[in-house]
């Protein structure tokens, strides 16, 4: 039994192995060589390096992992996957962490998860993106007045260039995507 000294686990109801089990299986051949970190173009923005992230996964340090924004900053460029001497599916592992983060509503990943959620929600309704609706939903979900203010200058610029419209989109989608989403949800639940 192992613990990084002085860090309680974040999800006492679930054992770390169960949560991270599938990830550990993917990553256990890791030799901590650091090729992933040296590959990563976003590493300097992360609060700790991908190498450390993988090490924490193998050690089952759930709290530290989900308190970080390392996995949230992965831009899925696949550079690390290409270079890993062990041939590990590192980008897949990052995605898996993002999914876990969304599912568990982890604080560190919450803005990202809600942003993506609002985006897909809009797509699901209209078959295409409605920017205004998308951002409105996002702001409501975040419940933070500072966020709309932060996005205002960008919104004005986009409006001026006619990249977005303030008018709501009334058109029904030609091919409704709802079924498609339902199917994906079903498949995900099966997993």
């Amino acid at each position, binding site marked *: 039994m*192992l613990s990084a000294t002085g860090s309680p686990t974040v999800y006492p109801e679930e054992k770390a192995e169960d949560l991270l089990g599938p990830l550990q299986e993917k990553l*256990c051949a890791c*030799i901590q060589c650091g090729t992933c970190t*040296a590959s990563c173009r976003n590493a300097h923005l992360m609060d700790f390096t991908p190498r450390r992230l993988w090490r924490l996964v193998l050690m089952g340090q759930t709290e530290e992992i989900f308190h970080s924004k390392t996995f949230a900053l992965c831009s899925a460029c696949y550079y690390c996957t290409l270079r890993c001497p*062990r041939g590990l599916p590192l980008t897949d592992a990052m995605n898996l962490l993002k999914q876990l983060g969304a599912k568990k509503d982890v604080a560190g990943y919450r803005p990202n998860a809600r942003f993506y959620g609002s985006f897909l929600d809009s797509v699901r309704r209209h078959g295409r993106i409605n920017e205004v609706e998308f951002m409105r939903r996002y702001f409501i979900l975040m419940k933070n007045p500072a966020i709309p203010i932060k996005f205002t200058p960008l919104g004005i610029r986009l409006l001026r260039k006619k990249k977005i419209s303030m008018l709501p989109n009334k058109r029904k989608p030609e091919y409704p995507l709802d079924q498609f989403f339902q199917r994906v949800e079903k498949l995900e639940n099966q997993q």
Partner: protein
Amino acid sequence: MAEKSGSALVIGAGISGLRSAIDLAETGYHVFLVDKAPHIGGILEQLDHQFPTNRCGMCKLLPAVEPDQASQQCLRRGLFHGNIEILASAEVMDISGEAGNFCATLHQHPTLVDPNRCMGCGQCAEACPVEVKDTFNAGLSTRKAIYQPAPQALPGTHVIDLSACTHCGECVSVCPTGAIRMAAADRKKFKILVADEASSVREQLQTLMAGEGFLVDTAESGEAALEKLKSEAFHLVLLDIKMPDMEGVDVLKEALAVQPSLQVVMTTACAAVQSAVESIKAGAADYLVKPFSEDFLLPQIYRFYEESGKGRQRELSVGAVIIATGCRYFNPAEGKDIFGYGLYPDVVTHLAFERLISGTGPFGGRLVRPSDRRPVNKIAWIQCVGSRDLQTDSDFCSSICCMSAVKEAMLAREIGGGQVETVIFHMDLRVFEKPFQQYLDDAKRSGVRFQRCRVHSVACSEDGARLAIRYVDMDGAREALFDLVVLSVGQRPAEDAEKFSEMLGLELNPWGYLAPRPFSLTETSAPGVFLGGAVSGLTDINDAVIRAGAAACGASKAIHKSGGSLETVESADDGRDRDINREEPNILVILCVCGDRLKALIDMDVLLDRIQTEPAVSQCLEVDGLCSPDGWAKMLEELKDKPVNRILLATCAANAYAHRRLEIADAAGLPEAAVQIKDVFPSDWFAGGAPAKEQTPYNTGYVERCLKLAIAGLKGIHWGPAEKIPVYQSALIIGGGIAGMTAALAIAGHGFRVDLVEKAEQLGGNLNWLGRTIDGADVAERLQTTVSRVNDNSLIHVHLNSTVADIRGSVGRFQSTIGEGKNAQTGHHGAVLLATGGVEGATESYGYGKSPAVMTQKAFETARSEGRIDPAALSSVAMIQCVDCREPPRNYCSRVCCLSSLKHAMYLKEQNPDLSVYILYRDMMTPGFYETYYTQARRKGIIFFPYTPEAKPEVVVPGQNGDGASRLRIRANDPIIGQSVEIEADLLILATGITPVLPGDLMSKLRAEVDEHGFFKEADFKWRPVESLAAGVFACGLALSPRLIDESMASAEAAAMRAVRMINRQYLTAGRKIAVVRHSLCSGCQLCISACPYGAREIDPEFGRIEVNPLKCQGCGACAAICPNSATVLAEGSETEMFEMIDAAMGPV
């Protein structure tokens, strides 16, 4: 009845092949040493320095006892042994038959240069207009199509690279000895058929090849081609893969049915891998892509033409075969992750780096960048390129690159006067052999920097002048600039591995290497066929030499078993033994005048007059054209019945004749030492025409001085008859573990008596408590079969519960007392083998002894096999590696412990997958194919924590500190997360390594040395790894150094081979270039006894005088240098001789 033969075939003349060949040749067999390359030495020919000495030392492979068997000269220059026939540029095409009676078919590749005539003058290379990349210098420089394969080789015979030669004939016209054959007349007999639909191609090829003198015919369809092939014989067909009427491959198949020996080259305009593979499988000789340029096609055609020549095939009848073809290196340009190799000229492989810093390399030993020849200030080594990389299908370690990188970094710092910054980017540092850890410590002290990480990429720096390396350290990603980047490229299987596997039905391992049988490093599934050296995985020299010895032992046993003779035919020529020591010097001077060229430079009459005034010179003989076979034969004819006792041969290029001294000596009925060869010609004699007189002070006086110097040397030689010492033809083996038993079986397998002394009550040593190896092989079963084979062998006399109480004597004649008291026996042996083994190291660290939950690896193994470990009852197990190891005072790696821990961890994990296993390590030592177990262990979920000796793990035993915890707690630091980690464990297994139990008193009686850790001290770690400097004393197994079971057995066989070589004749003949003591001058100060590194001197108690053991003495001269009275004299190089030579060199002309 099958005919038996006393000869062996060794394929591959690298280090391993050479060791096997010399071992077998010394033992008395005839050896055919075959290599595809035009030179011997393999990769070692390219390396000037070896770790851990940073020197060469290859000559130590030459016989040390009976040294006159082989020409004692630098082995990188060439090997000349009466029993070894070297067949360079030759390939083994087929081997058939059975152990004891193989028939090997050899194909001799043409080099177009007659080695008997070529003098190595190099004029041909100067004249050659074709320039290609020099593979010897790893492509860092260029060479010509005619070239000298290795710069140091003697004689510097040139060869023609047929894949580059355009047959322009320039070299033929400049060769002074007519050694190059390129007869145009024979080309008319070589018939080529061009089958192609396009008339333009047919016409182009016909014009081109007919212009070179070949007989060319054409066919426009498959049917027409087959018609022509049926009506007349062709040698070569150029066949288009798409014929109008049928598929080219079908034409090929039918053509080969008509003329099976036909060479068919498929041609195509659109190359595809599939069609290439298909045609080669169908029997095509090659596959070429159109359009052809003249420069490309002609060398190909010539290659087929030359290879087709008669007399290229040769059949050899041999009793055993050793495959020692080594391995290839990974080409970084092949993979996707190329670190800029091939893109930036300053990214080189480690082999190229060795050439770069070599004195014979492209830059004359200066440390400069290949791109702009500017000095190098900062070098990076990138480890594990093409090894330990699952992406390049290399789940193995290449074993040697860590040490070679360390060596190269140290050399770079040495060359750069300590100013060159060197960084090695590595993962684990594999220092698994006995002296490597200390070597690594030396490197760290000398300022080599080590960075633990894998390098991500190498790119050009922004200013384009340097190379930027992107890597990661504990603070995150970083970038650093370097002048030169060296890639430590990993191993790949030998090109021929698959060929031999098919030819002999040998097994290949998952990575394509020839695989030995379990518990052996050399035996194969085919009896009589053995693997030597790196063919079954890359090894360092030490390992290669041991494996070569083991392979030689296996081969020797196979030949012996099938009745092959061990006896050598003694030379009938007694001239070699003639005692000229007391004869008045009577010198014959032979001067090669080289046509009129010498006379044009010096006054010949004056020279001859002056030389003749020297009283020791009885005659001067002018000869001409020694470099031609005719001239040489004429000279030998003249020597007959000349009443002289010393000969001085004055020629050009004296080195080229050095190995032919014996021919002259035999012709004149003299010992070899009585013949000296002296270079008296200007050094630039061959450089084209007349020498530049203003550069070299070349005149009659110069030649006279040269000759007088040599005459003075000849006058002083001492060359008595060789002493013959009778030998006890049996061996004493101390230690009855697996190494001792294996050695006993090997020696007894040659028909010699063996006394096997074991102090315990049963044979087997450490194998008695070992269950299985990490490979899953059954140790107990192996032990049982070995013990019963030992007990059943009537030649092996086992002495249990016994020790060797006393031993005296030296090589060939040891007398020992076995056992004590009433049961004591006296033994007479020719050789002594120490196989005393080792035991698990003792420790008091990490709470050992304070809790039953802390145990050693041996205790765990024993408990496990006795069923006292229940994995299901455990939830967490920790292991700590390198306990009291790899740091002073036990500063060596014990090699077996990492594998044992992996074995135990995987066993526990298999039995109980919920069990957590943590291994705390410094560097995981899983060299070679053991790496795959390391990968497997990680895959099974075993967690590894690296630690450093500065920050060792801390262990809290239950009850300690009064905290009432029920389990062990281990605190360690995880460098990746930068935090301290606490592990709770039910069990802690300590890897305490191996300590030797070598009996010191016996060692000093044998005058053999013990190293600082108590292991047997080898004569040379790399080159003579199983023997002591004191001749006749050998060691194997753990007595040498920590090693695995198969490695112990290989060392035992290698040691047995060396021992058999000592005892297989009734007499051993001493070398003649040895020291003698003039007792009348000797004051008995005994300084020489301690000065002698070979323990060859001792004081004779009866007469109180110094005696030299002529078998042990190597003629090094340490005694002569230290002797205050000049009472010790060397056979060649006495003081008188030296002073006379100095006088001659300095005296008036």
